[in-house]
C-alpha cells in the first residue's frame, strides 16, 4: 500500500500525479519534452535509456512501463529492449547509443563519475552536444522518477498485460497527466 492515500486503480507515478497535480504537471511536461518532442535520438532510443536507468534503480513500475513503451515503438524489433537490459555492450544497437548508455549508467550512480573520456567517446561515435545533454538529463530525471515512485511505495501491478496496454498508450499518446 502506498505511503499516502492515492486513488485506487492508478498505479505508479499516475496515482502520485493525481494526488498532487501541481507537481504532476511539470513532471509530465518534462517527460514529454525529453522522450517525445522531435530529437535526433528516436523515441525508442530515449525510452531505452529511461528503461535502462530504471532497471539499474530496480524500480519495477518504471522499468516495466518504459520497457513496454520502447517495445511498442520498436515493433518487430522489440526484443532489443531485453537485450539492452541484459547487457548493452552486446545488444544490437548503434555504438553511439551504447556510449550514451554508458554515460546514463554513470549518471544513475552519481553525476560526478562521468569523465571527459566518456563524453569524448560518445562524441567520436557521432553523439551531438544536444544528445549528450539529453542522455544525461533523461538518466537524471529517471533517478528522480524512480525514487518518487518507490519512495512513496506506489502501487506496482504485477500482470504483464497491464504494462503492454500502458506502453501502447505511452507510445501513441505520449505523456498526458492523469489528473481526475
Amino acid at each position, binding site marked *: 500500500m502506498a505511503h499516502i492515500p492515492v486513488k485506487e486503480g492508478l498505479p505508479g507515478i499516475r496515482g502520485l500525479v493525481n494526488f498532487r497535480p501541481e507537481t504532476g504537471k511539470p513532471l509530465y511536461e518534462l517527460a514529454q519534452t525529453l522522450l517525445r518532442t522531435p530529437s535526433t535520438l528516436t523515441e525508442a532510443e530515449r525510452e531505452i535509456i529511461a528503461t535502462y536507468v530504471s532497471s539499474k534503480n530496480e524500480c519495477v513500475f518504471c522499468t516495466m512501463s518504459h520497457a513496454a513503451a520502447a517495445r511498442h515503438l520498436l515493433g518487430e524489433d522489440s526484443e532489443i529492449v531485453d537485450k539492452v537490459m541484459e547487457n548493452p555492450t552486446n545488444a544490437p544497437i548503434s555504438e553511439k547509443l551504447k556510449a550514451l548508455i554508458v554515460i546514463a549508467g554513470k549518471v544513475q550512480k552519481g553525476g560526478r563519475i562521468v569523465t571527459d573520456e566518456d563524453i569524448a567517446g560518445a562524441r567520436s561515435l557521432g553523439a551531438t552536444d544536444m544528445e549528450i545533454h539529453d542522455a544525461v538529463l533523461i538518466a537524471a530525471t529517471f533517478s528522480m522518477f524512480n525514487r*518518487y515512485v518507490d519512495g512513496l511505495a506506489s502501487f506496482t501491478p504485477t500482470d504483464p498485460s497491464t504494462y503492454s496496454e500502458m506502453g501502447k498508450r505511452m507510445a501513441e499518446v505520449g505523456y498526458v497527466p492523469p489528473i481526475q
Partner: protein
Amino acid sequence: MAHIPVPENMPGIRGLMAFRPETAHPLNLLAEQLLQAPSTLSKGERELIATYVSRRNHCKYCASTHGAIAKHLLGDAGTTIESVLGNLQDAAVSDKMKALLTIAGQVQISGKEVTTESVAARKHGSTDIEIHDTVLIAAAFCMFNRYVDGLGTYAPDDQNIYDMIGKQRAQTGYLTPPMPIPLS
C-alpha cells in the same frame, strides 16, 4: 569546463538551462512549485531539505546555492544546515523536520530505503502532502545534482556569488531570469 558548450558567466544549472530552454521550463516550474508555492512547510524548511540532499550527493553548486537560499530564508548564518548535517537527532530543528529529513536521506540513497516506520513521521504532525513533497523534493534534487555534475558544469569557489544567488532566489523564486555572475 562543462561537457557541453554553455555561456561562460552561467555556472551550474544556469548554463544548462540556457543551453536547453525547452527542458528548463518544466524544471523551473517544478522547483517553484516544490520550494516556493504556498505550503504548510516554510520555504526555509523546504530549502533545508534540498540542501541536505545536495550535500549528501556532494553536488557543490546545488548545495552551495540552496544552502545560501536556506540561510537567507531562515535568517541564520548557515547554522541550521550545518546542525542537520551533523547528528540529525541533535539538530536545531523540530521533531517533525527531523522525521522528514530522515525520509529525505533515505530517498537520497534509494526510494526503496523508505520504510513504513519512517513514514510514521505522521506522529510528529506531518501531513500526507508534507510527506509527498519531502519525497519529491529529495527525488528532484537527486535529479538536479546528477544533471549539474553529470555535465561537468562549473561551480564557483567564491561564497559571495552563492549569497547573491541565494538572496535573489529567496526573494523572487525560480521563475525570474538569472542575474549575471561576475567572472572571477
